[in-house]
């Protein structure tokens, strides 16, 4: 098959090789994934200034600008606060794999946390998903966990 360049007067150059990175997850981020592996639950962090619990845990509370140190174990459940059934393909920048479409991107308030966590919900039927529904995290088998966000396979509606 002739290339586009062979056909046209105006030419182009194509780069397809990825540009790799090696990001550090940091102390609290690492703790978040270790908690999933060890106890199959989430962990957040509480601000002593305003009392808010953030998940995933981080070092600073934006509104208070204070250092956070009090890790707070949470459960594996939460509530859907928003969602979108996505109908266009996405190439995972980590694996190069394409996620099957449609898939549902969820905006989930984990029980015990004050901010919102995002992940995939395994329900794409609009008649069966609503804001306010309870969900539970479905984790990978412990021996297959890699210490990254894919250790959470998805969230599942439980009522």
């Amino acid at each position, binding site marked *: 098959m002739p290339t586009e360049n062979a056909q046209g007067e105006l030419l182009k150059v194509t780069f397809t090789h990825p540009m790799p990175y090696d990001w550090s997850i940091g102390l609290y981020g690492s703790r978040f994934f270790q908690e999933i592996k060890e106890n199959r639950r989430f962990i957040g962090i509480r601000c002593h200034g305003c009392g808010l619990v953030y998940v995933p845990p981080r070092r600073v509370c934006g509104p208070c600008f204070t250092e956070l140190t009090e890790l707070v174990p949470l459960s594996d459940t939460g509530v859907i606060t928003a969602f979108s059934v*996505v109908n266009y393909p996405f190439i995972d920048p980590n694996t190069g794999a394409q*996620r099957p479409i449609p898939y549902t*991107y969820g905006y989930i308030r984990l029980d015990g946390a004050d901010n919102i966590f995002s992940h995939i919900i395994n329900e794409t039927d609009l008649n069966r998903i609503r804001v306010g529904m309870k969900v539970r995290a479905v984790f990978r088998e412990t021996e297959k966990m890699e210490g990254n966000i894919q250790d959470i396979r998805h969230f599942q509606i439980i009522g």
Partner: protein
Amino acid sequence: MDNAAIVGVAQTKYERRKKDQIFADLVFDVTRAALDDAGLGIDDIDSVVTVSNDFFDGRTISGMAVGDACGGQDKNISTVSGDGTFGAFYGLMRVLSGYKATIVVAHCKGSEGSLPLATNGMFDPIFQRHLGIDAISSAAIQANVYLTRYGIREEDIAQVSVKNHGNARRNPFAQLPMEITVADVMKSRKIAEPLKLLDCCPISDGAAAIIIAGEEVVARCKTKPAWIKGVAHCSEDYLLGDRDLANPVALRDAARRAYKMAGIRNPLAEIDVAEVLEPFSYMEPLWLEGLDICEPGKGFRMIDEGVTVMGGKLPVNPSGGALSANPVLVAGLARLIEASLQVRGDAGARQIKGAGTALAHGFNGPCGQSHCVWIVGGNR
């Protein structure tokens, strides 16, 4: 504030793919056109701000690649990412700090990289990027929060697309002038619930430039100046999960400070035309709420009530807005250019008759993390 003005503006036509021009070609064209518009030469410019994004351009320090094309040789060049309104803000700061005239140039070729991957790159690589979130799916989440909060119907936000694509028919720079109906929007392809294809902006290539000058240079320009009356920006939390996506608090803060600087007490009554950055249909009513032009939850009624349509009390996006062309790095600067043309009386077929005060709005970051609000006026 009344000692700096926008004295020259230029835009390319926005198109899906400009295969005959590289970034620097686009910047060269708009630089010369903005100088011509102002009646200035490159030697009158003593400060340069470029607007570009390294992920979009696929090169590090992307602003360096357009330095020659914008007359930056032997001048002080800085690059600001974002939508162009933030670059313009920095350009204004340069003028207020003593430079005589700053040219602000923005370019974007959405056609050349992968927009899903480039906008996925906005997000945290440890917790979010693997999930596929990008500009569109994050907007879909914001739309879901906003529509759910106030019981807004998808048909209500579809009206924005109908209005703005219709307005684009009077804008020779627009990429997608279209005569469509709410039914057309509703039956267009589902992209990410609740957004359909026609609720979303197109992928665009283009460039734009403005010249911001202090009083001494303003007096020498051939074009009627658009005086900068007020401007402010504000940012909120990075992580979407830390924000209330249906309550644009950073926009409200920026707007109130810009209004105060401009001496505006009642924005709906005192502003004649507004250009707001709405790459997704639901954003226009949400941003109007943040701009205090209507109450929270009432933005979607503004078209039905005839307020924001051409001929209404406050026409919004006579240009067709970002729904009709969204060269991301340029799209906010285009709003400021359109507002300037309106108060100059040079907006052609999309001119709002007698527009004396215009608002331009831009934002940067997913779901409007940072907002920048400008008020320009035709009279000092």
